[in-house]
């Protein structure tokens, strides 16, 4: 109801409609005035007619018996009324017996009966003088219409009210229309601002990314070095013990690399602010390898996180960016190395109505910030770093993120001793999302289970085929979704479809999964991808997913989850 009224008001609040309403109001006022005028005139005529009838009845005797003085007396009595301009009393022969006129041409010398009429601005009424059916004469009365002063005083007040109301309506409509336009403009402005903020957040993230890249690339080279040299050494030795150790080293290097790329992809993902319930301790521990990569070897990361930290509700990716930003600032403040200490604690509310919070402090043992600069560090584009080293967006991102999460951030510093950034977040009353970790030993499947592999990359397809064969599955491989669907129409003896997500052709893996689900309800599809956005899309639909690169154990687990055998 309210919205309907709002919409109506919104549609009506246009200057043209306001003006039309005002004109309508004026027209209505005018119409009422005219109607009133007519009614008043009719009433006046009726009243004058009654007066004439009374006079006629009174004059019966005087006219019958030629009593002119009495006739004149009765007529003169009515002279006191200023609106009556003429009275005439006529004998039975129609000749004027007595009368008066307040102006020339008003009073006829002879009488003729006529209905009440307005002639030259005068109301004229006549009445016969009759006594028991005998016509004794007639009377005629003339009265001016209401005096203009009276009429003006009657209408002036109403006219003023109507004109004021019309003006008010027109003014209000104009103002409302202006306010509506302003509100629309404000909304557009806010939308633009939101977009700009999104862009800023992304660029802040990319800035942090940039800071990371150097360290990560270095780390990757190390990992590749381990893998490459390990393979070389594998070729040159037959010692099973040594081979096993080399194998383990290569495996470890690849695992670290996979973990690192996964974090980078998650980190770089362009996503809107989506607060989720987060375990701060777990997040920091997950982030630790990435932090170690992005800082130098001479910076020691010390996590002192108690168990049982309360959950908080924040955008997880923004939290990571904020921590990275603080860590990078700390790194730059410690050119000769030092310690980056993370401490966290639950804080009970200080007053009964206050919120319970979780505090996270990040302290470095760096150069510190001068007191006069401390106030400015949260301002965007404020930086103490040299040209090309920083954009000054890091701490402003921290500030924006903490405020958006409903928390507070405080920075304290002492020159030569170090800097501490303390963030407090409100405790979340929601539970942490549930996580299931399954550890199943790898074992070969019994019986004949067939897996259809849909993968455009020949190398990947070959490796996956081998892994599946190792696990005891029979496989067939096609290059794209269309080929998979074609094969399924002729050969239905597949138990699982394992499909890449990004493939050539019009159909991606997700489309294939939908189509297979539609056509073959009991044929499960497991998707695999290395793209974080594709992974998010698959997760959103709740589809089984393997994130590349994955281990043979993960593959076995994923296939067994959809086809227990």
């Amino acid at each position, binding site marked *: 109801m309210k919205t309907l009224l709002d919409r109506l008001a919104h549609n009506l609040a246009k200057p043209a409609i306001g003006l039309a309403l005002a004109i309508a109001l004026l027209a209505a006022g005018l119409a009422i005035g005219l109607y009133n005028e007519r009614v008043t005139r009719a009433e006046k005529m009726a009243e004058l007619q009654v007066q004439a009838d009374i006079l006629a009845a009174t004059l019966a005797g005087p006219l019958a018996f030629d009593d002119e003085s009495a006739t004149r007396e009765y007529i003169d009595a009515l002279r006191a009324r200023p609106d009556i301009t003429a009275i005439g009393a006529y004998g039975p022969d129609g000749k*004027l017996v007595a009368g008066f006129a307040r102006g020339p041409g008003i009073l006829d010398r002879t009488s003729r009966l006529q209905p009440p009429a307005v002639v030259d601005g005068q109301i004229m009424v006549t009445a016969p003088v009759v006594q028991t059916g005998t016509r004794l004469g007639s009377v005629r009365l003339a009265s001016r219409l209401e005096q203009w002063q009276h009429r003006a005083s009657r209408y002036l007040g109403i006219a003023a009210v109507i004109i004021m109301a019309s003006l008010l309506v027109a003014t209000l409509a104009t103002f409302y229309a202006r306010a509506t336009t302003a509100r629309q403009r404000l909304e557009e402005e806010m939308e633009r601002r939101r977009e700009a903020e999104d862009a800023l957040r992304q660029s802040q993230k990319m800035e942090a990314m940039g800071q990371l890249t150097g360290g990560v690339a270095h780390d990757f080279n190390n990992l590749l070095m381990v893998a490459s040299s390990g393979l070389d050494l594998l070729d040159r030795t037959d010692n099973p013990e040594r081979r096993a150790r080399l194998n383990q080293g290569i495996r470890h290097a690849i695992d670290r690399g996979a973990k690192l790329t996964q974090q980078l992809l998650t980190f770089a993902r362009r996503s809107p602010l989506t607060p989720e319930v987060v375990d701060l301790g777990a997040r920091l521990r997950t982030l630790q390898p990435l932090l170690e990569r992005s800082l130098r070897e001479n910076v020691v990361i010390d996590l002192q996180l108690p168990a049982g930290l309360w959950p908080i509700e924040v955008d997880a990716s923004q939290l990571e960016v904020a921590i990275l930003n603080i860590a990078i600032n700390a790194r730059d403040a410690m050119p000769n190395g030092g310690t980056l200490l993370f401490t966290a604690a639950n804080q009970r509310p200080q007053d009964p109505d206050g919120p319970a919070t979780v505090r996270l402090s990040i302290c470095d043992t760096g150069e510190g910030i001068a007191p006069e600069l401390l106030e400015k560090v949260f301002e965007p584009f404020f930086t103490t770093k040299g040209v090309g080293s920083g954009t000054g967006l890091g701490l402003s991102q921290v500030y924006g993120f903490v405020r958006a999460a409903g928390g507070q951030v405080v920075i304290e510093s002492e020159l030569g001793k170090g800097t501490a950034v303390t963030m407090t977040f409100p405790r979340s009353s929601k539970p942490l999302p549930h996580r299931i970790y399954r550890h199943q030993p790898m074992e070969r499947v019994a019986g004949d289970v067939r897996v259809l592999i849909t993968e455009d990359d020949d190398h990947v397809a070959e490796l996956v085929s081998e892994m599946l064969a190792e696990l005891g599955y029979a496989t067939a491989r096609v290059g794209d979704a269309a080929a998979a669907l074609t094969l399924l129409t002729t050969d239905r003896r597949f138990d699982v479809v394992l499909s890449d997500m990004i493939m050539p052709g019009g159909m991606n893996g997700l489309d294939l999964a939908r189509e297979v689900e539609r056509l073959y309800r009991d044929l499960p599809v497991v998707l695999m991808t290395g793209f974080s956005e594709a992974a998010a899309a698959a997760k959103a639909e709740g589809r089984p997913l393997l994130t590349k690169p994955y281990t043979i154990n993960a593959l076995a687990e994923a296939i067994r989850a959809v086809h227990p055998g």
Partner: protein
Amino acid sequence: MGHRGWHGMVLLRARLVVVSLALCTLFQSAHAQAIVPDAAAVRARYLVKFVSFVQWPAGTFATADSALQLCIAGDDPFGAAIDTSARAERVNGRPISVRRIGNAPPDQCNVLFQGHVEPDAVPTPAPPGQAMLTVADRGTSPAAIQFVEAGRKVRFIVNLAAAQASGLVISSKLLGRAMAVER
């Protein structure tokens, strides 16, 4: 400017007063100069007019349009004037019939004008209970309405007791025009 405007208003009003005064004078002088009609003709006219101001008891007239009998007893002072006046009038739709009855009894008469009679002639009285308006010149004969001469005008005196004795009701409008009302 304001001064001249005000002066103009005063002039206009003064002119209006002069005009209306002139008009009034015109009417009054017109009547003052009217020729006084013959007293007998006036009395004849009045006699007929009286009828309009008098109410007869119910059942006086046979039918709704039966004529009203205006009788003239004794000498007739009106001559043709009374016939002319009577012909011109209708009272509540009834014509007025003029009868000269001399000294005969005023049977069926609704109005009786008692004209001059010789001293030895005795007018026949009206039958008792007959609703009859009696009219006479003052000093000639007792009557409900008596004409009198007042200066150059014809006036009349109403004797209410006589009228009521005949069962007649006389309109206050007629009483208002009477020179005197006797009870």
